[in-house]
């Protein structure tokens, strides 16, 4: 039987196993919306802004490992989606974004609501497709899902002119979506893996640096086994938090600009570094000339372009983290050897000395003003470390990363690569939809939350009981911190005046709101909010205005040149 393009679109989503479609209607996609109306298998979530749709789909994808799916109209619908597409691109998140397009014969005529969505999104997608014939629609959709979810994942855009969604053809779900020009390598080269094992066995001061690729590749248990076999310290990037259990004694915390003293010092002094699914980002490496000066480096990554990009490594294994680490562990076990035990003991002794600096210490005794760290520590304690935590961008993000100890992957959802303010709330929507029984907390700041505040309305429509933890310091805290350190406290446009009353704002959207300004009320307020299983609670914590994120490595410094809270003076 012949179906219209719009009907084929919906059938394809169903056959791909798509649960949720995050979208916003408009002229170019009205045929599709009509087809959606006539079915119940694919659930459409109506957001309030297309940026929200992409972030919600992104939160869904990061928390489940399944692709997030978005539908927006042409023109402004597509441009509004771009920030979310770029956010997903930078963090390698699988999204499939469908943009409506004007009728084929109008393309190029500056037609109403026409933009070159393919051109605009080209630099921030893994790939994009334009559908030119309804007979190609099913195959293109299948390829889009295939490309988005395999290899190094990423967003794929499919631009569909309106007339295509009205044309008819027979529908068959294509079986084989493979492309001759796209063959990601997943198995590592066995000879190189053996060399990596050999090098690891010679280590006296080994260090494991694991990133988001371990989470994307579902390789946490392989990583855990490997690290435990080696008995080596393990650090995670901001994107990798949860890949290795934060409460494991072998974990030394996050590394990088706001990482722990012990993680960064161990990077600086290690003699063999194993990097897995991490891309040597500048926030992690600091000054490249001072990066791991004593280490021989092994790098496992599925994307050849991540290898030797910023840092020259000695042994490069191209492949999937899970498969490669499995082989690596097999090679280590087969060797019948172990790491030098006395050397390892001395290395841990050194690390324990660094741990003794207690780099995340803060003024806990303060009974006057709420310390943001205290809120997050309490949240961690009350949720027993088991909540999904989404975050926006700024100081609150760093404190959440430092103080909420993630023991499992896909629980920490934040924008690391693009650093997109406005990400947290819509991302929480996607996470909560995917995990209706779990606690989802959105840690945010009074500046970030206002960038996608309209999604409070979406939360109401779908009864999403998200807990918003607003660390309200009346500043763009991260900006203020840099201005304090590097611009002699000239706080140029980083103070937020005319803030809304967040409690009333939440209430006007139909949610509960609570303002908390004393440290001794923090726990009770969090308990109260977490206890409300069926409604969104907006907790507005009035926090210390001048608190800074420590430790900190200033731009251009090395890992051993950290500033701790106790040395206050900086740069």
């Amino acid at each position, binding site marked *: 039987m012949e179906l219209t393009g719009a009907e084929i679109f919906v059938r394809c989503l169903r056959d791909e196993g798509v649960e949720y479609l995050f979208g916003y209607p408009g002229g170019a996609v009205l045929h599709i919306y009509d087809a959606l109306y006539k079915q119940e298998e694919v659930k459409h979530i109506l957001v309030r802004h297309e940026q929200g749709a992409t972030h919600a789909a992104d939160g869904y994808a990061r928390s489940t490992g399944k692709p997030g799916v978005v539908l927006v109209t042409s023109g402004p619908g597509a441009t509004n989606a771009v920030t979310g597409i770029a956010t997903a691109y930078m963090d390698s998140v699988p999204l499939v974004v469908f943009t409506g397009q004007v009728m084929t014969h109008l393309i190029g005529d500056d037609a109403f609501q026409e933009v070159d969505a*393919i*051109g605009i999104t*080209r*630099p921030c997608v*893994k*790939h*994009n497709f*334009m559908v030119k014939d309804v007979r190609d629609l099913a195959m293109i959709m299948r390829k889009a899902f295939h*490309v988005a979810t395999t290899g190094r994942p990423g967003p794929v855009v499919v631009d569909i002119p309106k007339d295509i969604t009205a044309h008819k053809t027979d529908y068959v779900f294509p079986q084989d979506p493979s*492309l*001759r*020009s*796209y063959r990601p390598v997943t198995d590592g080269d066995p000879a190189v893996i053996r060399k990596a094992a050999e090098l690891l066995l010679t280590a006296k001061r080994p260090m494991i640096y694991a990133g988001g690729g371990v989470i994307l590749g579902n390789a946490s248990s392989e990583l855990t086994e490997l690290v435990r076999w080696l008995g080596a310290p393990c650090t995670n990037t901001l994107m990798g938090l949860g890949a290795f259990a934060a409460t494991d004694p072998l974990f030394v915390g996050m590394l990088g600009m706001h990482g722990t003293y012990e993680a960064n010092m161990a990077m600086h002094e290690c003699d063999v570094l194993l990097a897995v699914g991490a891309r040597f980002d500048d926030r992690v490496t600091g000054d490249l000339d001072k990066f791991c000066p004593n280490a021989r480096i092994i790098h496992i990554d599925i*994307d*050849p*372009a991540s290898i*030797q*990009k910023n840092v020259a490594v000695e042994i490069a294994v191209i492949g999937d983290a899970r498969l490669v680490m499995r082989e690596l562990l097999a090679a280590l076990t087969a060797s019948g050897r172990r790491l030098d035990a006395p050397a390892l003991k001395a290395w841990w002794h050194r690390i324990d000395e660094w741990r003794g600096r207690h780099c995340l210490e803060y003024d806990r005794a303060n009974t006057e003003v709420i310390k943001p760290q205290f809120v997050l520590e309490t949240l961690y304690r009350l949720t027993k470390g088991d909540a999904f935590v989404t975050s926006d961008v700024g100081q609150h993000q760093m404190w959440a990363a430092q103080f909420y100890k993630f023991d499992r992957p896909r629980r920490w959802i934040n924008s690391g690569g693009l650093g997109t303010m406005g990400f947290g709330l819509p991302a929480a929507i996607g996470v909560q939809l995917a995990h209706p029984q779990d606690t989802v907390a959105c840690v945010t700041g009074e500046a970030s939350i206002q960038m996608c505040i309209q999604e409070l309305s979406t939360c109401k429509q779908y009864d999403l009981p998200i807990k918003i933890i607003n660390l309200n310091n009346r500043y763009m805290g991260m900006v203020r911190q840099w201005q304090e350190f590097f611009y002699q406290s000239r706080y140029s446009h980083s103070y937020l005046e005319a803030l809304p009353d967040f409690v009333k704002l939440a209430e006007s959207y139909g949610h509960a709101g609570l303002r908390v300004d004393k440290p001794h009320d923090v726990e009770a307020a969090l308990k109260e909010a977490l206890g409300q299983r069926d409604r969104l609670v907006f907790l507005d914590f009035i926090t210390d205005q001048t608190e800074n994120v420590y430790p900190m490595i200033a731009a251009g410094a090395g890992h051993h040149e950290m500033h701790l809270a106790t040395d206050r003076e900086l740069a």
Partner: protein
Amino acid sequence: MRHIISILLENEAGALSRVAGLFSARGYNIASLTVAPTEDPSLSRMTLVTSGSEDVVDQIRKQLNKLVDVVKLVDLTENKRIEREMLLIKVCAEGGERDEIKRLSDIFRGRIIDVTERAYTIELTGDGSKLDAFISVIHPRRILEVVRSGVIGIARGNASCVPDDRSSCLNSNDPAA
């Protein structure tokens, strides 16, 4: 160092802009770029000349390979190769100059492909340095217009940049081949 890279690309709208966009977005140099369809109409051949340190060129190759439209990539610089560029040049040729221009063109194995009473249009192929040399022997004031094609290249010997799954007389047992 200068690198000449041969790429087989899906012959699709947008494929060329993906390559060009990659170079501008990542700040890579691009000296010349030529594209045309191949004997297989679903593929185009692109030849690209770029330059940079070995690290940068390594990234360029990897980033190009990462583009979903790129079917195959070979850096011709790594082996013996033949490079060609075509030049079309229109030169002022009047009176006594006509013979001299004709002689120069012959020396360089050029062909005069269009003639008016005041000008010659000459076609010349060769590697870049040969074309440069020819241009340099013509007085700048006589040059009316210069059009160069950009470089194309091919590996010497049996090596070829074709899709991995394509069989040929060199890798099949077909006696007729």
